[in-house]
């Protein structure tokens, strides 16, 4: 079987599992099953809420990775772009505390997206214009973001307020699923919409067709007049913007403040989610939710007062799951063929 056929089979299994999980969650939260502690830890509303909360930055990070990598640019720097976005959001928010809350939050979101975009553009410039190895360029982005945010971080500044949940009429009334999915703050909705948009964009629009062609076979794209590097610049910048949004989410919706190095490896985990999802938006979203779930589990186990296992070991869970996933699935997925390679128009004979 060809890799993409294997992938289709995997995806079906994944969806079946996901549906089974939702069904279980509904059962646990509406019936007497919910009285068992361990079932509540595994499937309670709080676990589901936390899963989504932890998954959103991973989803956005993975979408950022897909945007870049589908056009042939490896983006190991998501972590740095996210951190830069988070820091930018924080600075923007603390400086606009006296504005009306919504205006201030939206403005800060835009700043986060913009700074992320600049980091993406920088990565594209390094890798395309200056032909830097793309993995090293990504590392530069990470170190740069960590250094600048630490240097400029004003530890006394406080961001006031964050995005509040918006309940969607009717949908939010559905038991279990309603409060988990349809009573969330703005950026969560935005992230989920983005997944669908990216899927449609990649597979059903001219932009997506060209992006994929550029990432798979740049010369073929070039010979039909598609400007390969312009697409790579554009997509990497877009990817940076989405990663910036992920950072904005952390500060403006999830936490409300900035801490040094607050991305804590989320950029890298979202890369793993992207690989796990075979560079497809919905696949990557599924993987992100899985990773989010391991983080939720960590949280729930601590809340449930599990003392036999030290908290350090529970905290390792997301990282260990990432390693297992990367080990088990790489080789069975297929990355865009032209990834990581510089493309030159002239003299390619």
């Amino acid at each position: 079987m060809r890799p993409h056929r294997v992938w289709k089979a995997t995806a079906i299994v994944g969806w079946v599992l996901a549906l089974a999980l939702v069904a279980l969650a509904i059962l646990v939260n509406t019936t007497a099953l919910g009285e068992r502690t361990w079932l509540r830890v595994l499937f309670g509303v709080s676990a589901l809420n936390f899963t989504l909360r932890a998954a959103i930055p991973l989803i956005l990070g993975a979408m950022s990775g897909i945007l870049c990598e589908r056009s042939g640019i490896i983006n190991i720097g998501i972590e740095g772009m996210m951190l830069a976005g988070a820091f930018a959001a924080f600075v923007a928010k603390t400086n606009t505390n006296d504005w009306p809350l919504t205006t201030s939050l939206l403005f800060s979101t835009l700043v986060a997206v913009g700074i992320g975009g600049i980091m993406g553009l920088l990565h594209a410039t390094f890798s395309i214009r200056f032909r830097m190895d793309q993995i090293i360029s990504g590392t530069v982005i990470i170190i740069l973001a960590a250094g600048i945010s630490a240097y400029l971080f004003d530890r006394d500044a406080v961001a006031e307020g964050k995005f509040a949940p918006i309940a969607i009429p009717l949908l939010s009334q559905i038991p279990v699923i309603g409060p988990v999915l349809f009573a969330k703050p703005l950026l969560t909705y935005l992230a989920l919409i983005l997944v669908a948009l990216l899927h449609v964009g990649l597979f059903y629009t001219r932009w997506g067709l060209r992006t994929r062609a550029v990432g798979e076979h740049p010369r073929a794209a070039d010979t039909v007049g598609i400007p390969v590097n312009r697409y790579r610049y554009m997509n990497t910048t877009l990817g940076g913007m989405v990663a910036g949004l992920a950072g904005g989410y952390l500060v403006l919706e999830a936490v409300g403040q900035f801490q040094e190095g607050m991305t804590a490896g989320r950029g890298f985990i979202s890369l793993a989610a992207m690989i796990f999802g075979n560079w497809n938006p919905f696949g990557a979203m599924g993987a992100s939710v899985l990773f989010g779930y391991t983080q939720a589990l960590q949280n729930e186990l601590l809340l449930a007062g599990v003392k036999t296992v030290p908290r350090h070991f529970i905290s390792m869970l997301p990282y260990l799951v990432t390693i297992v996933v990367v080990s088990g699935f790489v080789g069975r997925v297929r990355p865009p063929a032209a990834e990581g390679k510089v493309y030159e128009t002239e003299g390619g004979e």
Partner: protein
Amino acid sequence: MDTREPILEVRDITKVFPGVVANNRVHLELYPGEILGLLGENGAGKSTLMNIIYGLYRPTEGEIRVRGRPVTMHSPKDAIALGIGMVHQHFQLVPVMSVVDNVMLGSESIRGPFLDREAVARRIQEIASRYSLEVDPYAIVEDLPVGVRQRVEIIKALYREADILILDEPTSVLTPQEIQGLFQIMDLLRRQGKAIIFITHKLKEVLHIADRIVVLRRGEVVGEADPQTASQASLAAMMVGREVMLVVEKGPASPGPVVLEVEGLEAVNDLGEPALRGVSLQVRAGEILGVAGVQGNGQTELVEVITGLRPATGGRLRIAGQDMTRASPRQITDRGQSCHVPEDRHAYGMVGAYPVAYNLVLNTYYRPPFAQGLTIQEEAIAEHARRLVAEYDVRTPSIYTRAGSLSGGNQQKLVVAREFSRPIQLLIAAQPTRGIDVGSIEFIHQQIVAKRDQGVAVLLVSYELDEIMALSDRIAVMYQGQILDVLPAEEATRERLGLLMAGVHPQEHTAAGLST
């Protein structure tokens, strides 16, 4: 001579790359409804010229006129807009995408914000029926056979309403029978008024199909010929600039004991699909066994299994009587006393960033005198390099020059020097002369024959039927992972080999109208 208006004129085009003049004052005209054969060796400047016409390169000097008007092209987009289409030698198709997606790429049909795949599929069907180019619009390109992929390339050009079609070495990946099919399509296109430039280095083909022949040598037009009156010999002389030796000089073989013995060998390719389905063959000391076949029928995998680079999933491999089925590449080199000239010298044969001297010990670096225990002996390596560079006429400024900066011919001589300089009993040569200059080809052919005469068993894999026929003592034909037949060289006619390469079993040959 012609009163018609040329649809394309190339006027005094010169293209200079750093250090090379690829095209020098090239001049040619193309008329609607004709097939212009553009003949030339590898490196004669054909592809450069076509890339200029297609807008991929900009000429250093000169002018191109389309339908009588001078044009400047900045990218293929401009060429496409002018009605120029190109079928590249290496197909420019995205393997993981469907035919529809590949055809519309760059000239997408849009409805609202979305791609209109149905409309494109309908157009493809129209074109397909008009020019008899059968293809399933929704098939994924990587699932299609090579011949069909080529049709997709032609459809791609016609979809863009090209009147001028450039076919760059379109026959190099096809079987003789598929070539006939292509010629029928080209004829149909010509009768419908399309102008075609047919690039090739194969004399017979150009004589068969072209209306006019232009010969290119070292970037210059060296002459025109009329297929009605020209002969293969006269064209060859024009193309190469001197009489070519179509036959490599060699005496009769005196085969000794069996050295390489392969029995029912099975293996899978990189995608996990079966690539070898029970291959059996024997090569004796002092003979050359040529493996003919269209590229992609398992030849690559066969060589990789025999050299230990790919595990066999079934069958047996013996070298000089020892079982080597599970041996590593090093064991096969050492215990099997074999050497390997790989198909892709850039990927496998050398390390471009290493100096020439290191490349000459790439697989013997650990043996004395090049290493004593763990330590590398630089002086012994340099000494060895000096000797081989002289002996095999590798043209390099220094033995410390990066191998990647040498010319293709000299890189191949480097590989040959390294492999032939060891005491060997088995030589495996895959595409030993691909893409190198005539002088180096001759040299390498002579070396291979010399090895045979010293009693080495030679397995030669090549996609060039001429090379196989010129060198081999026996010829095996590979098709879809199997050896269909093994013929003594004297019985192997082009027609018989062609049928075998197309997968027609030997016993069906009489039915196919061929008497043996």
